[in-house]
């Protein structure tokens, strides 16, 4: 294999893995921040216990996030030297901002957040907690700025193959960056809320099974009941936050889609498998499912099979029944995603949307149960199927995020810097394919080990449960 393909595999591999952890770090930091604020304002101990307990899992997500972030930062130099050399003036600058402005704040705050409970005043500790949240969020902001700029490189021009920045404001606040950051940040929070709720449901489900399995009524000590209540509380806090977050994500996601239609018509055509531009006076259909036929000799293609909603795509993207939507065949074959890439983005996009809707439905179901009084401890423990639903939902947010990133990155191909630089022009010179291959295998093995260990340790932390009796700071 050539080093271009290997470098792409390596980057895709490491990025897909890395994204999981900041997702949880940001979400957990927000949750802990909320809990600590509630503790300081109401003085109720239960909030303090929540903040302490979930911090244990936060530490793991943070450590793995940092660890898996190193290869990404280094790879820009090692594998994408030509891209880095050409875009360093802006792209490198932004990554420099990320480490200097965001990461320093986050790591220092983390030290105090984890080890400072009995060492600093409560208000300082809350500040540290906020420092972690703000640091992680700013970090995500700069990364999204850098990536959005790759999608819509505004405020710059190429000069002898090197980027020259004309307008920093335009480059940083390009048309994509704020919407993309919002979409990603909300995804972080949403995925984590379903993680916390799912973990809590898992604990309750185990209790429910235990109760159902024993012939005589189980006598539970107060400590045990307090522990179950702890997880039920966590479940409810998440549910409250979901009321805002899950519908918000549908709105922000829609905004994101509208932007793609406006700024990257090739990507839109690919993720909708829309081949031929609709003739004036007719509407472009929206396909729910589509299978493309083999590409013709000239590179053009079409669908062999499609389940279509007439005029759907025109209505969604142009808000008129016969608005023109450019099809894949109207772009030069070398300047747009190929058929395989289009199919990947098409299904990834549908998967993401479907999950977004499912999560809203799940939120509504939870609220309905709550409203009907079925979320009292003894009531919820006799409803294992309800709990099971939430355990199954744990991976959904993560899958949706990965799918969204696939649409975003694969849909941008063949460009590394949209319409300015091709991916094939960005790769390092004189890399060794065997060495790169070994690195990919090694890193993937390490990553698999890390995921397994994370699940193992998280399961243990959850099984051991919260410490409900230690001295308050």
């Amino acid at each position, binding site marked *: 294999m050539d080093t271009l393909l290997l470098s792409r595999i390596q980057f895709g591999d490491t990025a897909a893995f890395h994204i999981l952890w900041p997702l949880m770090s940001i979400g957990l930091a927000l949750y802990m921040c909320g809990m600590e604020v509630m503790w300081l304002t109401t003085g109720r101990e239960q909030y303090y216990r929540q903040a302490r307990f979930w911090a*244990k899992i936060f*530490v*793991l997500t943070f*450590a*793995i996030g*940092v*660890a898996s972030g*190193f*290869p990404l*930062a*280094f790879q*820009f*130099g*090692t594998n994408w*030297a*030509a*891209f*880095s*050399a050409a*875009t*360093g*003036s802006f792209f*490198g*600058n*932004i*990554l*420099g*901002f990320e*480490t*200097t*402005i965001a*990461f*320093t*704040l986050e*790591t*220092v705050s983390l*030290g*105090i957040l984890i*080890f*400072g*409970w*009995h*060492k600093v005043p409560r208000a300082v500790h809350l500040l540290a907690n906020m420092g972690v949240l703000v640091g992680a969020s700013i970090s995500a902001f700069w990364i999204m700025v850098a990536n959005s700029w790759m999608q819509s490189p505004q405020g710059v021009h190429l000069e002898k193959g090197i980027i*020259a*920045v004309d307008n*920093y404001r335009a480059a940083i606040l390009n048309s994509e960056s704020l919407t993309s950051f919002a979409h990603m940040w909300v995804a972080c929070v949403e995925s984590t809320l379903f993680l916390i709720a799912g973990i809590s449901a898992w604990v309750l489900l185990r209790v429910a099974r235990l109760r159902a399995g024993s012939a005589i009524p189980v006598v539970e000590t107060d400590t045990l009941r307090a522990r179950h209540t702890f997880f039920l509380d966590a479940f409810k806090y998440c549910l409250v936050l979901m009321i805002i977050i899950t519908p918000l994500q549908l709105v922000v996601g829609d905004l994101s889609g509208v932007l793609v239609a406006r700024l990257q018509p090739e990507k839109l055509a690919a993720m909708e498998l829309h081949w031929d531009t609709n003739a004036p006076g007719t509407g472009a259909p929206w396909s729910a499912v589509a299978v493309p036929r083999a590409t013709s000799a000239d590179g053009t293609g079409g669908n062999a099979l499609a389940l279509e909603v007439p005029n759907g795509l025109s209505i969604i993207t142009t808000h008129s029944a016969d608005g023109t939507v450019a099809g894949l065949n109207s772009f030069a074959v070398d300047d747009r995603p190929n058929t395989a890439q289009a199919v990947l983005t098409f299904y990834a996009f549908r998967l993401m949307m479907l999950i977004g809707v499912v999560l809203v439905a799940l939120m509504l179901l939870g609220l309905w149960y709550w409203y009907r009084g079925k979320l009292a401890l003894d009531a919820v423990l006799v409803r294992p199927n309800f709990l099971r639903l939430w355990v199954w939902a744990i991976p959904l947010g993560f899958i949706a995020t990965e799918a969204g990133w696939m649409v975003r990155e694969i849909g941008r191909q063949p460009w590394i810097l949209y319409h300015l630089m091709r991916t094939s022009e960005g790769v*390092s*010179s*004189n*890399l*060794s394919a065997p*060495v790169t291959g070994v*690195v990919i295998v*090694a*890193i993937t093995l*390490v990553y698999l080990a*890390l995921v397994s260990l994370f699940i193992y*340790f998280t399961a*243990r*932390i959850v099984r051991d449960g919260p410490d409900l009796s230690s001295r308050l700071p």
Partner: protein
Amino acid sequence: MTATLLQNVWYVIICAELALYILLDGGNLGVGILSLLPQKEEERSRMLQILGPIWNANETWLLVAAGSLFGAFPLVYSIGLNALYVPGMVIVVGLIGRAVAFEFHVYTERKVWWSKIFGVSSVLVALGQGMALGGLLSGITIAGKQFAGSVWDFATPLTLLITVGILCSYLVLGYAYLIRVERYANEHESFGHLLRYAVLTFAALLLATIFLPQTNYLFFSRWSTPPAMYALWGIALAIVAVSLWVGWELWHKRHPERLYFLCLGLFVLGTAGMLVGTYPYMLPPTLTIADAASAPATQQFMLWGIGPLLPIILAYNWYLHRIFRNSFVEEK
């Protein structure tokens, strides 16, 4: 500001960030490495506890320096890492291992395992840094604005010497750090270890310094043409003097605090010597500060974005170190 001045300001900032990384995290990295040497597991756990609250923040300076380098001197970042792919990946694997092993160690019952992984990862980070520095000083082949050598170019005899020197010097810092922090239990042995590794460091890096001018004419002329030669010989003299002072303190086994700072001083002197020897080259023997710099507009923008924040960042780092000064934390 003129372009040249800006470039030099950024050069100094990045060197300062790297120096901060060595000063703050060098001891922590050293402790990680020496935790591998035979000792009781409780002792090892105590070592990790000392590092707990601070090491993450300390290690961040390496990333900060890398980030600044990417923005201010993109060619160094791209060509340098492209050429030093193998050392770079060794460092990455080490950093990954350190980050996760540290946290897993807290939760696991198999402490031995994870402290071993932490130790081995720390060794990898030190080795990778030695290999990278060795590869850099051995010279990087550049054609046009691209790396034109092979990924194995870094592997030279010089690199071997420098790698041994770097590894041993981190051990020196590690022992000095332990002796200082909490009147480390094995204090008496530590003085002996420290001395041994200090001698090894000195020998390896001295040999490397003698070797260096032979690999590259640039370095030879530095030792023989003013004004660089005055600075270099001055730094060499200072290193000898401070080394003797360290030896004196070790012999009398006292002043843990002073000992630690003397060792740090040696590190700073060595780094300064290297910088004087290579300035204005960033990737010897071809790429200079001016060649590698990004556009003045970028450097200026970055300076405005980051410059005012640096004092604030230093302030909260200082606060963190003050809270956890000389303490080791039982609870997590």
